[in-house]
């Protein structure tokens, strides 16, 4: 186990380095720069700015400088948000997105697992059809449509919920619904198919032949086996969801990290692009390791190598 974790950490370092390197060169290949979009800057001023942030040096030099800084935990200052370090931006925005995203993932799990199981147990019956239709909608309908519909009906027409900001618990309702819709639908489908698979297994027949009651059979013998695909999916999904969604944050005016990704790219905020990308990559990798460990705990057949 310890050996496995050490191995995964080493592997993670290599992966993050590769992600950082690729991102660095790709973003520099894109035309434009952080100071070009603002109009009427004199060539002298621009040169001075570029010199200040080291953008006048050759790309290889800048890459080495950046990497050296990153190794020491210095991800630089934002090029566009003057006076803020990349780290401080992430530290400020991430908790906001993480809170909304974390609640959404919880909702997705709490709804998706039981509903998917019910669909499997009631296969071919009305409950299954209803759940399947909802699941298909959840996967097919893009989040901006859901956001807009929610906002129109719950926010504007009925006036039940506030449409922007995150001041109170009420403010969380619509963003959480919008964010959890897709993962809920996805988990329902995963759960339904894996539960159907498990219900047909011989060991379920054994459980019945032992004289166990239905609930015990379901919760002890079926659920633990059926939940594995969901575990696999939830890891990376959690990483993406807690880092925020640009669309949902934009529509509900949530000051989260999701918006920063897009703002950074549009503004060629090189250091912020690097910072957010490395942050997301690290989260995804950590989540995958966590998934592997959880997997091992749920299914003893799996060996971590």
């Amino acid at each position, binding site marked *: 186990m310890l050996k496995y974790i050490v191995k995964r950490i080493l592997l993670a370092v290599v992966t993050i380095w590769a992600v950082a390197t690729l991102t660095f060169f790709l973003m520099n290949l894109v035309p434009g720069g952080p100071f070009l979009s603002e109009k009427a800057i004199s060539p002298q001023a621009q040169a001075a700015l570029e010199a200040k942030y080291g953008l006048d040096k050759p790309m290889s030099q800048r890459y080495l400088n950046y990497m050296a800084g990153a190794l020491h935990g210095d991800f630089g200052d934002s090029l566009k948000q003057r006076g803020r370090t990349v780290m401080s931006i992430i530290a400020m925005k991430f908790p906001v997105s993480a809170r909304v995203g974390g609640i959404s993932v919880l909702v997705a799990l709490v709804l998706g697992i039981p509903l998917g199981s019910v669909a499997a147990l009631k296969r071919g019956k009305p409950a299954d059809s209803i759940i399947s239709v909802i699941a298909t909608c959840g996967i097919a309908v893009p989040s901006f449509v859901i956001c807009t519909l929610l906002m129109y009906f719950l926010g504007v027409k009925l006036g039940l919920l506030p449409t922007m900001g995150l001041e109170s618990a009420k403010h969380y309702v619509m963003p959480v619904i919008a964010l959890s819709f897709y993962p809920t639908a996805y988990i329902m489908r995963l759960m339904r198919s894996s539960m159907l698979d498990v219900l047909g297994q011989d060991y379920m027949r*054994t459980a019945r032949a032992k004289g*166990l009651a239905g609930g015990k059979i379901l919760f002890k013998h079926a659920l633990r086996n059926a939940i594995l695909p969901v575990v696999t999916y939830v890891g990376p999904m959690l990483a993406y969801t807690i880092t925020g969604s640009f669309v949902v944050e934009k529509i509900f005016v949530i000051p989260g990290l999701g918006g920063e990704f897009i703002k950074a790219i549009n503004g060629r905020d090189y250091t912020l692009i690097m910072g957010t990308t490395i942050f997301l990559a690290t989260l995804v990798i950590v989540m995958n390791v966590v998934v592997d460990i959880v997997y091992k705990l749920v299914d003893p057949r799996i060996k971590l190598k």
Partner: protein
Amino acid sequence: MGEYLVDVKNERLSFFTPAGEVKALNDVSIRLKEGEVLGIVGESGSGKSVTAYSLMGLTAHPGRLLGGELYFNGHQVEKMSEKEIRKFRGNEISIIFQDPMTSLNPVYTIGNQITEVIRLHTDKTKQQAKERARELLELVGINEPDRRLKQYPHELSGGMRQRVMIAIALACEPKLLIADEPTTALDVTIQAQILELMMELKDKLGMAIIMITHDLGVVASMCERIAVMYAGRIVEYGTTDDIFYHPKHQYTKGLIRSIPRLDTKEHERLVPIEGTPVDMLNPPAGCPFAPRCDAAMQICLREMPPVTTFGDVHYTQCWLNQKEEMEKGASHE
């Protein structure tokens, strides 16, 4: 009724599939005394397993019992509620399945899966149940039982897993053990071991066994009575001697002809039963075996044969036997 542990009378059971009704069991009757071993022989789909499962109330959806009476130890199974039947399952009637590789839950330890059934049907404490599980593993011939209790199914071989399944089945000392092709998925050498173990345990614990198999060799060595099933009917029923030395039904004769023998001449071919099993969705009007039967007569194709009895136990459902018996009767007069 009281003297029999199992008394199934004229059981009829169908599966209602989208393609139509499959008559899985037609007038099946089975009787078994305490401590007796009954073999049910037949090819796939002949209704062997369905007969046994229905006795435990384990008929799979979309199967439905249409008629007949099923008594177990004086209780009428088909009239019991699900909750009442659950008290029997794993307790008074246990079952061993065909494939030990998949019949144990992969995510729980052997110990957990054995103690589960003990704790369910007795009021033993956790510690007592564990002790009993240890005993059971020893009983079924598993070495290092303490270590095995903590192991997962995938860490054991097929033969070992089947022994664990037997341990689970015997945990509450059942009156009836149903063995559904318990050796089919095992190596030949292991097969013999498992069968030997079952007979040994039967003598020790005195339970009755219903042995479901398509292997006549298995029933010959183990069973006192044999029911030969074909297309959801018992076509011949008798003691082991009746079936092996005086088979009457053409299907039984065919089965026996198709067993390899040690005393045949070199290069002698086995005689297969020609044709394929009946289509259970569209069974023929007459005897279901008639299309494959060498000796089929006109009436065989039209009408279902009645029961012909030979002595106390032995009976068949065959027009040919009926005809022979009638001729015999006529010549006596």
